[in-house]
């Protein structure tokens, strides 16, 4: 197991009290595997990813049973030992490439700096590697690009460079937070394909965070669906797409406009809004929006086993099978 997270909870201190952003989240990623964390805004998917690199805001309080990366215990590792991991063995790609690039330095300088910071190589060797990687992420004439500044490049090119930067040190795990949502569809598909190919070639683990279910269906090996800070369903991609067990997962699938859906007919929408994370009551969090809610849903429920390696946080999981 490359990464193993168990019982992760994150509380944020706000002016209006403690906000429970993530509650008892567990997942794991194996070598060469893609885990997709799916959910809508505010479900806690991004903050979960940040917590793995220990990049949480100061107001956040993290508790967990285990967060282990290979043989390292990320939970207790001192900050000084975490820093050399970032960008080296653990890399992250953000949605906005501009925020990941320094506008004052050339692309080449930034790419080589990453390698120089973590490995003992000469600048010439690092530049060579940068060229090689730019070719790999589909940038022709890399020597020219290395001399350019981020603002001289298009959004698609910038994101390619950020991906190349994340790959400079051949990380074991790559965390991608909606890396393609800001891009044109053709470029998005191209970049995703590239990322997937590189991942397979290098045998990296990948955590991919997104709300786009179409995308998830194409790249995920396993899926974690989050809602209101909790995992509501987790399992192999095939199982979740074939037999979605949680009503929220099902509703999300029904809400995506898809060629299989009759044109101009209403899509399935999820009524209502996400409950406040400030005051959590002891009920199923989805109860208020669930079409199948019953009295029994007023009780907290743990993840129920649906099938092999497939769980869902719904009381009806067992009941439906028996019908």
């Amino acid at each position: 197991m490359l990464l193993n997270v168990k019982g992760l909870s994150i509380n944020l201190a706000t002016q209006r009290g403690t906000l429970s952003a993530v509650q008892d989240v567990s997942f794991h990623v194996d070598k060469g595997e893609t885990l997709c964390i799916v959910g809508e805004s505010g479900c806690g998917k991004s903050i979960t990813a940040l917590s793995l690199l220990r990049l949480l805001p100061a107001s956040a309080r993290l508790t967990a049973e285990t967060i282990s990366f290979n043989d390292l215990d990320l939970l207790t590792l001192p900050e000084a030992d975490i820093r050399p991991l970032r960008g080296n063995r653990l890399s992250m790609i953000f949605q906005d490439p501009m925020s990941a690039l320094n506008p004052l330095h050339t692309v080449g300088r930034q790419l080589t700096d990453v390698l120089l910071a973590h490995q003992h190589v000469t600048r010439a060797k690092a530049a060579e590697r940068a060229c090689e990687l730019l070719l790999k992420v589909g940038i022709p004439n890399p020597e020219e690009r290395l001399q350019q500044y981020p603002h001289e490049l298009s959004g698609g090119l910038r994101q390619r460079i950020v991906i190349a930067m994340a790959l400079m040190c051949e990380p074991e795990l790559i965390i991608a937070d909606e890396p393609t949502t800001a891009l044109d569809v053709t470029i998005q598909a191209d970049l995703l394909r590239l990322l997937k190919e590189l991942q397979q070639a290098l045998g990296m683990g990948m955590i991919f965070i997104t709300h786009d279910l179409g995308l998830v269906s194409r790249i995920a090996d396993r899926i974690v669906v989050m809602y209101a800070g909790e995992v509501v369903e987790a399992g192999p991609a095939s199982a979740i797409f074939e037999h979605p067990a949680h009503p929220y997962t099902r509703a999300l699938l029904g809400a995506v406009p898809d060629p299989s859906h009759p044109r101009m007919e209403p899509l399935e929408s999820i009524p209502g809004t996400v409950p406040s994370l400030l005051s959590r009551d002891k009920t199923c969090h989805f109860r208020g929006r669930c079409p199948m809610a019953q009295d029994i849903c007023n009780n907290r429920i743990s993840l129920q086993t649906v099938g092999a390696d497939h769980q869902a946080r719904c009381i009806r999981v067992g009941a439906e099978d028996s019908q």
Partner: protein
Amino acid sequence: MTPPLLELRDITHDYVVRHGIFGTRRRVRAVDGVNLRIGKGDVLGIVGESGSGKSTLARIMLGLLDPSEGAALLEGKPVSAFPRRGLAEKVGFIFQDPYSSLNPRQTVEQIIGYPIRLRDRGSPGSRRDLVRQTMEVVGLPERFLDAYPGQMSGGQRQRVAIARALITRPGLLLCDEPTSALDVSVQAQVLNLLLELRKDHELTYAIISHNMSVIQHMTTHVAVMYLGRIVEMDRSERVFANPQHPYTQLLLDSMLTVAPGKGIPELRLDTAAREAMRDHPVHIVTN
């Protein structure tokens, strides 16, 4: 024959770009000889990559921008001949970002009622009634009347924006990426609302989007833009079933529909492919 609701005739628009303060001026062609018609009751989808001229086209349709060449006609009359307020009563606009399109210091009532307040129509009481009615149309409960945008979710805000666009009863609604800033479940709510409004109020839409699934679901006609030109235009079902232009084909190939295990399609995006797309004859069917 009655004229189409909106017609663009040979629209070309250049922007002047200056390099540095004293640099040379250069003209950049954003829109290049665009012709299109939107008939009453149609839903026209306009798709294309960023920088393909979609937004420029929208600004021209709204009368915010005078094209360098060509004419935009609304009900057979040049858009530029309409007074600003008169035009706004015929063409409504929905912005992409419901966080930036609502004034954070105004209440929902003030925001939705602003267009009629500008026109000094009716008494405050009758205006309030009209705001209430419009809120009901877009499915906003009355208790939001005095709420501020900051107190609402993205979907609720987009409903406020739609109500504001509808209060003057325009026949044509121009939507620029109406759901791309919203979550999937909220997107479904807003798309359903738009479809329902179209049926109940006989609205015509022009929807600009880069989301091909949304376009396929929502539109009767599609115009595909590439490098400032319309390279393909036809009825939606024909475009999606049988694309004629290589760029349309590329857009369809890059759609990531829910298809577990299918993987990411391989696309040809190299220079040769781009040149082929640029030089390929356009395919335009108008009806």
